[in-house]
């Protein structure tokens, strides 16, 4: 029996290195599988999504993943049109959805909402991004991309750039990286530094530096993970305009990077990576999006099949 069968995927904290490696192995299997055989993995199964916050990208990635392995998807992606608008509790909505589907994906703004949903659901629940800090499938996707594109994770120098305070992908990524022997450099404007109260556990497993200067580290990094810097996060526009430019990856920055370095981004991007960069060999963020489909398909396949696939 595979250890993921009927299990919830709530937090990246629950995934140790061994579990991550099982998912990576299953992902490679999915990629190399005969498409007809692949479509048997979730045949007759339905994924139910409940997106209380809109995230077209994550939802589409799950839908594409489910389609890849022969399953279907149904759900709510616009809360204003759903019964929750009429005051239905999250618990009730989850219970109903777990009657209609075989696996649930929840996206919700409240911290801990996925753990709660898993408790009331009769089917496994995958956290599709909840609260401020949890987005486990994004972290799985990010790590798989690094492993695939760099052929390893251990020993790498990884820079994480941008909004580290509000980006939920960053916290999940750091927790996941804690399973590996990596050197992490956090690079962000002063006002968007990582929240110290959220790094209590991360610090025990991962050493990282914090800096406001991309320039300082760029020539030494193997992986540059870029996140969005949103104007709304700054106290005033002047402050935003002041720092914005220092974290934009353009061709000038590419020149300073190692030949074999890679650039990742959870997408959607705004202007933190110039479009000219897309054509460089360092740009791997679209590859990363593609791997997101395969890692999610692998995870769904493991959750739905007692003996794996």
């Amino acid at each position: 029996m595979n250890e993921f069968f009927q299990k919830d995927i709530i937090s990246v904290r629950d995934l140790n290195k061994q579990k991550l490696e099982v998912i990576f192995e299953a992902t490679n299997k999915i990629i190399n599988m005969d498409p007809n055989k692949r479509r048997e993995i979730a045949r007759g199964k339905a994924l139910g999504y409940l997106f209380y916050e809109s995230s077209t990208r994550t939802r589409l990635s799950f839908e594409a993943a489910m389609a890849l392995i022969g399953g279907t998807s149904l759900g709510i992606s616009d809360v204003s049109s759903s019964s929750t608008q009429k005051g239905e509790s999250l618990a009730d909505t989850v219970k109903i959805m777990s009657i209609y589907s075989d696996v649930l994906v929840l996206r919700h703004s409240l911290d801990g909402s996925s753990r709660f949903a898993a408790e009331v659901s009769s089917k496994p629940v995958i956290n599709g991004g909840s609260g401020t800090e949890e987005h486990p499938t994004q972290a799985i996707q990010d790590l798989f991309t690094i492993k695939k594109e760099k052929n390893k994770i251990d020993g790498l120098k990884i820079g994480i750039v941008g909004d580290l305070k509000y980006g939920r992908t960053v916290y999940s990524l750091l927790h996941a990286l804690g399973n590996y022997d990596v050197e992490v450099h956090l690079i962000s404007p002063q006002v968007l530094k990582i929240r110290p109260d959220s790094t209590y556990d991360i610090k025990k497993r991962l050493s990282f530096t914090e800096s406001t200067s991309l320039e300082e580290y760029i020539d030494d990094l193997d992986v540059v993970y870029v996140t969005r810097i949103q104007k709304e996060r700054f106290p005033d526009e002047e402050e935003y305009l002041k720092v914005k430019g220092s974290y934009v990856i353009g061709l000038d920055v590419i020149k300073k990077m190692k030949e074999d370095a890679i650039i990742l981004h959870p997408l959607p991007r705004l202007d933190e990576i110039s479009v000219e960069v897309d054509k460089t060999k360092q740009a791997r963020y679209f590859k990363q999006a593609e791997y997101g489909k395969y890692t999610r398909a692998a995870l769904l396949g493991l959750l739905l099949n007692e003996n794996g696939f």
Partner: protein
Amino acid sequence: MQESELIVRRIKEGTVIDHVDGGKGLKVLDALGIDGKDGSLITIALNVPSGKYKKKDIIKVENRFLKDDDTNKLAVIAPSATVNIIKDYKLVEKRRVSLPNEIERIFRCSNPDCVTNSSEHIESVMDVIDKDGRVLRCRYCNRLLDVNQLKYR
């Protein structure tokens, strides 16, 4: 008999909470819901000299025996407190409070965006991740909680 014990009257049946960290006595009363409304005798001594430089608070409550929830609250608020159970003027049991591995229900998570603070029917669960340092973490939102700022349900 120690001087501190002479300050307050002996009780027949009930509980003496001793060695409450100086200044935490009123907070303990609040947490345990001891307000005297049931007519029982309550005596409180605040800032009783204890040892050379320290001060402690003492609470004596008649006809009240602490439940697990109460002891857990005490362990969080006043970790060095001792609980003495009195029956017929005699000390029948003396125990130190200690933090359990998890605390359910009694405290509110301090994260306003936590699902346990929403309108959903859900009780808080906090894991004690460091007993000596008194570090608690909400099992739902994973937030670390400052024990000095916890609010009761």
